[in-house]
């Protein structure tokens, strides 16, 4: 059979076979002959078929043209086997209205990111660190968990392939899975909502995890197991940088009422497990998810100390993503089992929730892509929630609905990107708009201008509570 296909290949590509077996390129003499022949042959009159035929390129009997060797001009070469990249960036932003509890500047920072990667026999080591000067925050004390201070360690990991069916990544790393576009159900890895709302680059929405990732591969299915020995919280909105609705105060609050929280932080006790079982079926990708840990942002309160808490959380979920109607459709669901409040009647712990997401992305016109998503959160024990809710606190709807739209338009040879992302909740009657324009001045320089606009009807709804943080930002980045 193999011989037969070889034969077919030869027959099919007789010319290659000839060159493969016959002596390779034309020796000088022959090339001269070709040139001689060319001289004798009358030039085809222009106009016979529009233009004269092209001359043969070097290698097909044409004359050699001196080409620069691209390897010489490759500016991304390795030094001592260390691959080094990074960027430096200035980013500034202003609140578009006064906020009684926060500074007028929403962001003002100089950032230098250095990323090193080195291959060893055993695997690949990666370190990515951001040095940061950020006058908006008052404290510059380094806290690698919250990312506060002048150093934010994004990655310090070692990736190994101990067997053909296993990949292991140990250390500080960014982790992502799931199908949503800026909506997350089964991705319970830490997010940095501050970075997202003040207009840092989207990559900063993902905060790093200190974890071990074990990825197992087989023909039947693939399994990711991620163990975080000590709970990593979201970098949540706590009032230091962004104002928010404080139910205890019954109004907006910020630096006057910074949320103090009690993070479960005992190594190997307050740990997290995240599992994903996935495979492709035809062009569809399906996945099952499991998480055991804690609500990632505060979802409760200690009635004695008053500290915000991270109650126990276990989630189960599934997703499917596949091409449909010339685009990509995705569907994802999850059940958030609030383990410390199994029947939903504890007013100091968040209720269990069902979450659902359906989305579709496709090209609307050349260089214009649109994404549309529907998302809902439904309380699992709504009657118990209502019955146990202390009077005076705002009442949640049983179901929160959110619609999102993303439009991305590329222009000027893809150097200019117009993008718009809109969240709108018909049930909360509030929303969040993220317009942005990016322009690549050169391969190295990029300028951005964008905004984070919050609006809504009631002050206590999810997006509206950030209204006083509505901001405009601009940045200039040099990548190397």
């Amino acid at each position, binding site marked *: 059979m193999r011989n037969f296909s*070889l034969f*077919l290949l*030869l027959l*099919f*590509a*007789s*010319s*290659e*076979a*000839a*060159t*493969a*077996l016959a002596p*390779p*390129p034309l020796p000088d003499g022959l090339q001269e002959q070709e040139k001689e*022949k060319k001289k004798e042959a009358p030039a*085809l009159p222009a106009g016979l*078929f529009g*233009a004269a*035929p*092209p001359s*043969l*390129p*070097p*290698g*097909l009997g044409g004359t050699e*043209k001196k*080409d620069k060797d*691209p390897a010489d001009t*490759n*500016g*991304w070469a390795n030094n001592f086997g260390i691959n080094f*990249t*990074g960027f430096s960036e200035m980013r500034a932003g202003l609140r578009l209205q006064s906020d009684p509890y926060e500074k007028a500047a929403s962001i003002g920072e100089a950032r230098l990111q250095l990323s090193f990667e080195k*291959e060893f026999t055993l695997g690949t080591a990666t370190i990515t660190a951001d040095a940061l000067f950020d006058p908006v925050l008052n404290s510059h004390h380094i806290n690698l968990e919250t990312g506060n201070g002048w150093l934010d360690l994004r990655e310090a990991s070692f990736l190994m*392939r101990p067997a053909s069916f296993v*990949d292991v990544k140990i250390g500080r790393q*960014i982790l*992502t899975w799931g199908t949503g576009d800026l909506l997350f159900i089964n991705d319970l890895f830490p997010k940095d909502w501050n970075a997202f709302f003040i207009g840092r680059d*989207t*990559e900063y929405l*993902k905060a790093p995890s200190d974890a071990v990732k074990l*990825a197992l*591969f087989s023909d039947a299915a*693939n399994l990711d197991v991620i163990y975080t020995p000590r709970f990593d919280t979201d970098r949540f909105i706590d009032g230091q940088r962004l104002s928010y609705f404080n139910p205890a105060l019954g109004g907006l609050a910020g630096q006057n009422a910074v949320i103090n929280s009690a993070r479960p932080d005992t190594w190997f006790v307050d740990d997290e497990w995240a599992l994903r079982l*996935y495979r492709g079926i035809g062009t569809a990708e399906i996945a099952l998810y499991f998480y055991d840990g804690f609500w990632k942002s505060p979802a409760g309160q200690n009635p004695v100390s008053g500290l915000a808490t991270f109650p126990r959380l276990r989630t189960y979920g599934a997703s499917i*993503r596949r*091409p449909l109607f*010339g685009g*990509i459709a995705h569907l994802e669901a999850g059940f958030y089992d609030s383990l410390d409040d199994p029947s939903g009647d504890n007013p100091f712990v968040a209720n269990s929730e069902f979450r659902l997401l359906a989305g579709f992305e496709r*090209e609307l016109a*050349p*260089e214009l*892509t649109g994404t549309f998503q529907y998302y809902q959160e439904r309380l699992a024990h709504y009657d118990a929630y209502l019955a146990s809710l202390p009077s005076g606190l705002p009442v949640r709807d049983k179901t929160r609905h959110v619609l999102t739209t993303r439009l991305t338009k590329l222009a000027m*040879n893809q*150097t200019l990107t117009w993008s718009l992302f809109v969240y709108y909740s018909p049930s909360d009657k509030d929303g969040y708009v993220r317009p942005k324009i990016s322009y690549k001045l050169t*391969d*190295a320089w*990029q300028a951005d201008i964008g905004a984070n606009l919050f609006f809504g009807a009631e002050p206590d709804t999810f997006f509206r509570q950030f209204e006083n943080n509505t901001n405009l930002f601009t940045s200039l980045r040099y*990548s190397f």
Partner: protein
Amino acid sequence: MKKFILSLIAVAAVAVSAHAAPTVDEIVAKATHAAYYQGNDGKAKVTMTITDKQGRTRERAFTILRRDNSGPDGPQKFYVYFRGPADVAKTVFMVWKNTESDDDRWMYLPALDLVKRIAASDERTSFVGSHFFYEDVSGRGPAEDTHVLEEETEHYYVLKSTPKNSGAAEFDHYKSFIHKSSFLPVQIQYFDKNGENYRTYDALKVDMIDGFATVTAARMTDTRIGGNTEMHYTGVTYDKGIKEAIFSERYLRNPPRKELR
């Protein structure tokens, strides 16, 4: 002995191709094969220089791994690992090229550890901001056009190809100069409705690699966009046994460093 028989077959095949003038469909099939299907798999390091109409240049450097599915020239898988510029370094673009349906595409963004599935796009939009279209990189289906052998010159078969569905492409027709012995397209001229040649592909350099005549430098010029893009290929290899498993989510998140070297 096996080799000897193979050479005999090869010689016979050459003899046949040399004496019987190939039909248009044969030329098109062989040209497609020569341009996109040499060997069962292949690797190339590509440096792309994009020059805009004001003469400013931008560069892209990436490594392409390709693997053909079994059977005649049909579906293929591509793994494109970006080495530069710095802001896109380590980004991976993966395509499962389908001949009967839309291609499947994925993008891996390392800073977010995000495997993003990308909606199929118009095949005739720019590949990474260059003057080359997706279709120029992965190949246009021969069945999408009607081909006519217009002329035979000393070195070339000159074909005129007209799209069957004229609304699906921005050109009215294109003319290709197919090198007679290698079947490599040396030049392709695209014409608009007024017969104006506004876009031209040129093979600038051909090298014999692992027995395959391979274009190692090419240029696309487009007067509508202005400027041009040159692609230079180095480190080209064929039939190194690139495994199918590489074209999967696992290798998006953990690039096949040995194969990319």
